[in-house]
């Protein structure tokens, strides 16, 4: 071999030039093609237009809103009443005796201290807002709009002033609004309000140790049920956060993924035998099963879920069936490939002992494909948990639908971020569980 190489020229210039030229084309051509494609899509997607229309301030609002809540001080001018409430909600209104210390209500007038020198005085139909380094803004609500008196000088861009409505937000966490019907002051605070219990619940504001003591104590707050069940009930039925409903929705989503994947695995395995060359001699049967797999996969989860939503309505069953149909195709294809690649020696060995057909399958074939079977099913379970959220958003229910709905109303972003956090936690937990199971079952660790 070594002698042969000595006799032959090490390289022939012609081939080298050819290779170099070819490589040069690839090195320049492929990046150029990709660049060209990206430029084309840049315009096809209308990115320049999109950037001009983007509303980054919405992201800022969402970000503040999802980690903060506001307390409204509202004067309703028609009915001449003053209200202090969390997020302006009726069921979270403060009593006159228990007002937060930054509000002083005097009949139907009020003084609000927004901190750092920002102060609001509401007297009758007049609101005076003193802003440090700017001056005092005086706004009067009239019968058909508002009258604004600003300090002299240019109008800053945080003031929105038109004859119908006055709106000022000098900092992200302080805001006043005046219209002809109401004067409203928003004061922002960090955190999620009323997260554990509703505002008017007896349990509101209790610390964890207090709750623990209460749960163990003998005296019932509510004579009809134990303290433990009262705490659970008050928590799950919290109207602002709907913990109970969200947990149900999460459960539905998990159920869709688990049921769908298991069903797909159960139907996929026997069908895979029909599609494998070494188990089904009949060409027609094999061809038919393979096309069935292609059909199930090709229709795709999107179309299956739309068809099932029409037939079975909203709920986990719909999602589970959509996942099951699509993945019977995908898993069946994977299993049949695994079956075609098995080692025939084991099967022959089992046959030599005089085993029947079923015994040959059980002891010769199944042990060989079991690792592939388990690991693929677990991979699909993982990815189906994510798919189930999307199918839910199409209308099958579960956490996906809940997310889309809270986003559409876009009233309380903290609810949305709560759902997002829970969804991600569930998906990661499923991911970890399936990874752990895979390691245990396959690698035996």
């Amino acid at each position, binding site marked *: 071999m070594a002698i042969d190489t000595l006799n032959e020229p090490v390289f022939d210039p012609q081939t080298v030039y050819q290779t170099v030229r070819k490589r040069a084309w690839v090195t320049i051509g492929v990046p150029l093609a*990709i660049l060209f*494609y*990206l430029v084309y*899509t840049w315009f*096809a*997607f*209308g*990115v320049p237009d*999109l950037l001009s*229309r*983007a*509303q980054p301030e*919405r*992201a800022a609002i*969402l970000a503040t809103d999802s980690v903060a809540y506001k307390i409204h001080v509202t004067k309703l001018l028609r009915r001449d009443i003053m209200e202090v409430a969390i997020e302006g909600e009726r069921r979270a209104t403060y009593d006159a005796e228990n007002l937060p210390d930054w509000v002083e209500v005097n009949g139907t007038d009020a003084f609000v201290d927004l901190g750092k020198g920002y102060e609001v005085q509401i007297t009758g139909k007049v609101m005076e807002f003193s802003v440090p380094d700017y001056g005092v803004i005086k706004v009067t609500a009239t019968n058909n709009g508002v009258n604004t008196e600003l300090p002299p000088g240019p109008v800053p861009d945080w003031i929105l002033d038109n004859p119908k409505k006055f709106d000022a937000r000098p900092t992200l966490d302080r805001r006043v609004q005046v219209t002809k019907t109401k004067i409203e002051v928003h004061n922002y605070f960090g955190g999620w309000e009323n997260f554990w219990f509703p505002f008017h619940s007896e349990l509101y504001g209790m610390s964890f140790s207090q709750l623990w003591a209460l749960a163990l104590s003998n005296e019932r707050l509510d004579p009809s049920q134990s303290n433990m069940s009262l705490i659970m009930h008050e928590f799950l039925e919290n109207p602002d956060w709907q913990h109970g409903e969200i947990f149900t929705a999460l459960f*539905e989503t998990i*159920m*869709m993924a*688990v*049921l769908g994947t*298991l*069903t797909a695995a*159960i139907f996929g395995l026997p069908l895979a035998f029909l599609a494998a060359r070494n188990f089904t001699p009949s060409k027609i049967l094999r061809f038919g099963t393979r096309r069935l797999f*292609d059909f199930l996969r*090709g*229709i*795709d*989860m*999107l*179309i299956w879920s*739309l*068809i*099932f939503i*029409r*037939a*079975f*309505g*909203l*709920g*986990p*069953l719909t999602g589970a069936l959509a996942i099951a149909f699509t993945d019977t195709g995908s898993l069946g294809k*994977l299993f049949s*490939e695994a079956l075609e*690649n098995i080692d025939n020696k084991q099967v022959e060995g089992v046959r030599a002992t005089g085993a029947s057909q079923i015994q040959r399958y059980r002891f010769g074939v199944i042990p060989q494909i079991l690792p592939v079977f388990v690991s*693929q099913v677990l991979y699909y379970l993982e990815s189906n948990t*994510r798919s189930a*959220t*999307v199918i839910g*958003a*199409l209308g099958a229910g579960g956490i996906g639908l809940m*997310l*889309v709905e809270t*986003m559409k109303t*876009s009233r309380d972003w903290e609810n949305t971020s709560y759902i*997002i956090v829970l*969804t*991600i936690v569930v*998906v*990661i937990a499923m*991911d970890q569980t399936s990874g752990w199971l895979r390691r245990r079952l396959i690698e035996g660790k």
Partner: protein
Amino acid sequence: MAVAALEQEILSLRKRRQLYSLMGLLLVVAVLISGYSKSNEMNSGGFLQGLSKFFDYPGEIVLEAWEAGPAFFGLIVKFIPAMLETLNIAGVATLLGGAMAVVLAMASTRNVDSWGPLIPLVRRMMDIMRAFPELIIALFLIFVLGSSPVPAMIAVAFHTAGALGKLFSEVNENIDRKPIEGLSACGASWLQRIRFAVMPQVAPNYLSYFLLRLEINVRASAILGFVGAGGIGQELRRTIGWGKGAGDETAAIFVLLFVTIMLIDQLSSYLRGKLVGAGRAH
């Protein structure tokens, strides 16, 4: 005597194994039965009532498509630009996500001399990127950027980077280190080693995974369109929203989607077969 004891032991071990298998099987069956009955309860329409209606909707749109006659093919052509948009979303997302994944993979495998402290960090990052449901990113970006293909593209690319990054780093783990050592003996820098010792070894596998991901991403982009990200999904949502009368358009979209997905599947599995031999990327 010793043989009898051994037999006894084997027998008891086998019994225990059978018991475990049986328990596992029973668990699966119990989950299936209770799950289906529970979800049947939770569903707004039950399984049995639904079963009779199962073919109603497909039947309805097929009928309308039939009535449309040759104009049906015109409808299919009409939706090709929307389909193209979905394909573009998937294409760009796979390209950008794939490029990102290469960087992540090179930074997270000991076998290719990634910087040690970075490895666990990048791995956790990829785990999180993989776990983030695309829907959430897409919805958030649609809210900020408005309805357009770009949010879906970014969402899919983000997930792709995590998913491909993990697969790529598994490929990196299995390469031969001899070329790397040879290059370091010549004094090659890390980038040069990656370029001339690692890339030639991993390129076929990378490309094969890349194609598999493209397949998955086409489906994902179609679905995301349905929640407002443009492309064929958005058209589908519009025609479905119209209810009766638009059945022929819905059918046209179904057919177009089916054909495209099949074509891409076949093409990618053919190319993958050429790249890695057996035609199996997994």
